[in-house]
């Protein structure tokens, strides 16, 4: 059994790299280019089991998206994938319910292990 992951990043390269890493073990991946795009797509994809999200994006950034998801009462786990490493920002994400923070450049195997923990395939 597969599980859907939404990958949100304004970089096509990162979306492609993350998608490739997650598709290998069997995840179904949907891509979004920023927070606004993600909210629109998430509304129609109720089977999303995990969100992998950049922080710095145009229109709506990753922290703002977390605020929206938190306000909506979303239970989908979110992992931030970003070049940012500012402790205040990490703490802010955590307080908004983010389940993890991975600093780019990322190791694909670490991302897959995180996904397997938060959204196990076959569950």
């Amino acid at each position, binding site marked *: 059994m597969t599980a859907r992951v939404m990958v949100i990043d*304004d*970089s*096509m*390269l*990162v979306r*492609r790299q993350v998608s490739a890493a997650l598709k290998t073990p069997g995840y179904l991946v949907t891509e979004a280019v920023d*927070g*606004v795009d993600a909210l629109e797509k998430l509304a129609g994809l109720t089977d999303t089991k995990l969100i992998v999200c950049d922080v*710095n*994006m*145009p*229109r*709506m*950034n990753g922290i*703002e998206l977390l605020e929206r998801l938190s306000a909506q009462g979303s239970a989908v786990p979110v992992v931030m994938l*970003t*070049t*940012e*490493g*500012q402790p*205040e920002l990490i703490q802010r994400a955590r307080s908004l319910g983010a389940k993890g923070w991975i*600093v*780019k*450049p990322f190791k694909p*195997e670490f991302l897959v292990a995180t996904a397997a923990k938060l959204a196990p395939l076959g569950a």
Partner: protein
Amino acid sequence: MRVILLNERRAERDAMVRALPQDSYRVEAVGDETAALAAIAREAPQVVVFSAPSKGGQDLARRLRGGENAAEAYLLAIVEATPANKELSNLISAGVHDFMRRPFADVELLERVRAPERLLRWSRSVSKPFAFDFSAALDVTTLRSWRNLGQLVAEDLSEMAGSPFSVSQGYPAHLGADAACASIPMSLAGDQLELRLSIVADTQATKWVRETLLGDSSAQDSAMRDALRELANTAGGSLKRAALSESITLTTGIPRDDSTARFPGKHLCWSLKLEGGSGCLAVVGEVRSHTNQRISAAQLTEGMVLAHDIRSEGGVLIVPAGSRLTATSANRLAAMLGPRYFLEVAPAA
């Protein structure tokens, strides 16, 4: 400290184990590469000492470095008495930190294994800020993170690319005005400073971007430029994280396509050469002062960076200084604060 010893010569290996005091070092000695990789995977070592064959030593170093848990390990290679210069440079480019010639004394092994501890103490000592003079304007060019920009970026890009770069200061002379370029704007709004980091790629490097990062040698120009923007984004992250250790919080913007017309100028430039002559990237750091604008909250737009904290009347922090506004946050703040609220912002990043 956990030390992995990889040496196929049993007598030498046993002597090395005896040379390292058990109360300071947890040594796991193995006789072949497979056992070494298994030991590394079991528990991350701080130091890996390995006997480097005169041929293939760099490949072994890469495999050890690439093993699970070994990315941060200090690599010490044992080489024969008279290694070729090429052999040593290959080992260093493969990630080896230090080497030791045969024959060696116990005390030399011990001192070499202690070296990373000394480096760590040195690193801590130089990273301590001496003092801050808030009355003087911040000079970004004196920051260690700024001066070491080339190495910082090379380290992160190496991790991204899976291969090391050789770094030298200066702008590569062969890069013309038509070279592909992407940059990331950065801001120190409170100090009224703008920074910009650019990544410039020569023709060979754009080919490398297509083949290595995109996995498609015929990838479209738009995909290659997107990848270059992500390299600039990665460079911005490298600088930002390093600057944090100097108590400087930079704000990063959104990476964009750029032009090389103003390079090299008087900017800080580095040349990052890809392995095997497969191209060259330039890293360019620019800094300039600007004057913040005082505007009505109704005029807030995407990309503006707040120069000061925004607090409620009760003093509760709403948005911290240095925040880069998106359309979402700009609209929300405009609605919350109203057109009569004036605030100081840096230009869009």
